[in-house]
């Protein structure tokens, strides 16, 4: 409850973590607001089906609020005049202002009468795109801060956010956002491609960092490292060096 989880990937694609959390929270009966900036609804829907969850059905029963960024930006730029008082959540494409996006999140997750869902969840895929679309790094951090206050503190829900980072990256704005978020996260799941390059049986390693130091000073963070292999319908995790191909 009230936790901020940061998903991070380096040298690989960490989107499998997003798919996992989406189906996990929906199956747990939580109300989910998914800000999907990079892929279409059908992409997530097809993968979710392989993981045993129907996104269309979840949307139908009001459990899932899905913001399809790609579609909304087309509506904003090519669509008809928007109604006054209902700014598009993708407003920041024109104005670099993320407030409309935050309002969208807040309204989606606020409890309404007749809601029986357990705990609200905000899921964002992915935050690094906001920088490419005109938002300043400080604005992105402010947006996340507002979301945390609203979702984690006021609504006692969870927030899960994906960011990309690269070693030796020259994208200073992105590095600033990622480092800052790392400091404020309760849990960090860091998917990294293997340093030795591509391998058929081990797709990468995942570092799980439980930031105990955040809640209690002088408590060291708990770090666990596993390797993983992504399959069609699930991801298998194993201790380092003990992939099935080796045993």
């Amino acid at each position: 409850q009230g936790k901020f989880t940061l998903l991070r990937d380096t040298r690989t694609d960490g989107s499998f973590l997003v798919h996992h959390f989406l189906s996990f929270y929906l199956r747990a009966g939580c109300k989910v607001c998914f800000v999907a900036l990079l892929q279409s609804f059908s992409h997530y829907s097809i993968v979710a089906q392989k993981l045993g969850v129907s996104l269309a059905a979840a949307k139908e029963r009001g459990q899932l609020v899905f913001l399809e960024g790609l579609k909304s930006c087309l509506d904003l730029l090519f669509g008809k005049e928007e109604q006054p008082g209902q700014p598009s959540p993708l407003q920041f494409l024109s104005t670099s202002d993320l407030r409309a996006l935050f309002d969208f999140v807040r309204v989606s997750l606020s409890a309404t009468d007749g809601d029986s869902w357990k705990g609200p969840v905000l899921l964002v895929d992915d935050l690094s795109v906001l920088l490419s679309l005109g938002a300043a790094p400080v604005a992105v951090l402010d947006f996340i801060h507002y979301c945390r206050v609203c979702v984690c503190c006021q609504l006692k829900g969870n927030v899960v956010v994906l960011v990309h980072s690269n070693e030796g990256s020259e994208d200073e704005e992105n590095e600033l956002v990622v480092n800052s978020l790392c400091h404020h996260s309760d849990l960090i799941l860091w998917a990294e491609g293997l340093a030795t390059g591509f391998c058929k049986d081990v797709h990468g390693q995942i570092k799980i960092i439980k930031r105990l130091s955040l809640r209690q000073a002088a408590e060291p963070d708990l770090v666990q490292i596993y390797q993983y292999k992504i399959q069609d319908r699930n991801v298998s995790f194993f201790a380092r060096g003990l992939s099935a191909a080796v045993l």
Partner: protein
Amino acid sequence: ELPAPLLDDSHGKELGDGAAAVKSEDFQDSMKIAWRYQNLPKMEVSPTTHTKFGHYYDISKKMSPELCQSVKLHSFYLHEELPFEPTMKTWNMNSGYARLLQSIQRIISQEGFDGSDPQKKQRNVLRIGIQSLGSILWGDDVCCSDAPEDPQSLTKFLYVLRGLLRKSLSACIITVPAHLIQNKAIMERVTNLSDMVVGLESFIGSERETNPLYKDYHGLVHVHQIPRLNSLICDVSDTKDLAFRLKRKQFTIERLHLPPDLSDTVSRASKQDLAGSAKLLSSGCGAMAIGKKHLDF
């Protein structure tokens, strides 16, 4: 100025003969010393040796005008376009890119590629080609300045284009003069906003031109990213080291492999050179330069 396609079968026949010659060697003397390797397939240098895949063009000839006219072709030349009409909304983007997006969206909706008009049943896919995106030809200074005026125009353009492609029956291939973009952060963002990213690195003008390892090729092909769509997994091939060769009638992409080291008088220095290049080669997608310190044969 498109190259003429090779429509006759003569080229196919050339390939076929070559393939047949290779096959007949397989049945000759069975191996005596290396008998364990007897049943392994011969190293396939080029995936097209046995099948005809893709289209073939003769670069020395031009495409016939009749062929060009028989196909519905839309072109966009920035300097011939009308000035940008901002309508009521501000796009906050380089006007060249904004005009291009408007033009693409207009074609998609008029020709029915977005399925909006049930009358127009599109059986075909709209193929879009954009050349030299980011260059000064599009009014963007991201290629000529280290601190461009509006670095986000390019990435915003790609995002909106992505939206248009996802919502219609279309595919797009874009070329970007990456060697001119000094701000590497922009290239990282461009990569993240793309589904598939392939880099071509020419040997001309670089020290690799004289490296004996590369003497048969004109450049390297780097696959930086492959699409992972509608699935958890993606189709990563085993081969990471690809090189290209441009001949008059063929542009081929082949697996790069070290020629056998047959000389016994090779000096130590050059052996290290080759080994060093080999380490760089095998380090896999996206980890090109880092591989050197981790591979220890």
